[in-house]
């Protein structure tokens, strides 16, 4: 049929679901950058915490992509 779009609606759902973790990761690194700007000597300590927070926020996006492929 002319003008049809094929594909899974799951992917649109995943795109919407990825907004949340995206905002979260952005907030984490914003806080990390301003923390380092205020106190550069704390960078090594803040880096670990920032990456940990990033990994935990990213887990939501990861669960989303797994479910987008698994659910049908």
């Amino acid at each position, binding site marked *: 049929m*002319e*003008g049809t779009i094929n*594909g899974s609606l799951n992917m649109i759902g995943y795109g919407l679901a990825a907004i949340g973790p995206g905002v979260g990761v952005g907030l984490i690194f914003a806080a990390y950058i301003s923390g380092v700007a205020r106190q550069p000597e704390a960078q*090594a300590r803040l880096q*670990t915490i920032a*990456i*940990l927070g*990033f*990994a935990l926020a*990213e*887990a939501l996006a*990861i*669960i989303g*992509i*797994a479910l987008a*492929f698994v659910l049908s």
Partner: protein
Amino acid sequence: MINVATGRLRADETFTPPGPADFDLPPIGASSSFEMFGQTFALGVTKPMIQVVLAGVLVFAFFYVAAKQRSMVPSRLQYVGEAGYGFVRNSLGRDIIGSHDFMRFVPYLFTLFFFILVNNWFATIPFIQFPTMSRSGMVYGLAILSWVIYNAVGIRKHGFLGYLKLQTVPSGMKGPILLLLIPLEFMSNILVRPFTLALRLFANMFAGHLLLILFALGGEYLLLHGDWLVKPVGIVAWLLFIMIAFLEVLIQFLQAYVFVLLNAMYISGALADEH
């Protein structure tokens, strides 16, 4: 020409988008299959299996050669090996597990980090270009290993009940709220951890590789089969492909780092003294 009414930019040949099927590499060599648990299992060696072994051999060989001729004035190779070891030992071991008993876990963390790193970088190294960890089975093995290790370490230090109390009862909590908190903490600290650990690494490698396939195939399609108006978009897609490939190198490093970081966090959580 661009069909404005339908918004389609393509010529009439069909374009099949990449999907999970692109990761199913056929077994190399003679293969037979058997049925078990209602699934078909193929016997044979696949590319990711070879890569896992290759990664182990490469990591061992590199650090064996780097550590063989130790001298006070390090050679370049020895310097690189020591810098890599020092990075894992200090930033992942000592800073997170704590200076008291981190040395016990450094060999595990060190091996894990470089094993995953090499396996991830296989996605970028020319002629290999397939991330081993984009096959979920490879990652489950690592996740189960880390689950067994941090639980075993905790049970050994605190005893079974003491460990369960440490992991499920948040300090300073009393009263009926515990009825709600204990199942929740048990879920998050014992049950869900291996799954998120495995899925994070697997899905990052999977999605990254899928993205690269998409840009490569899409660029090729636009350039060769598209109308003349969309051909430049194919070139833009290939430029983006190169940029994303560099971004992927960073992500591959970061995911190896995060995997080992979380391993160290879990171990340090299991070793923590009760408050």
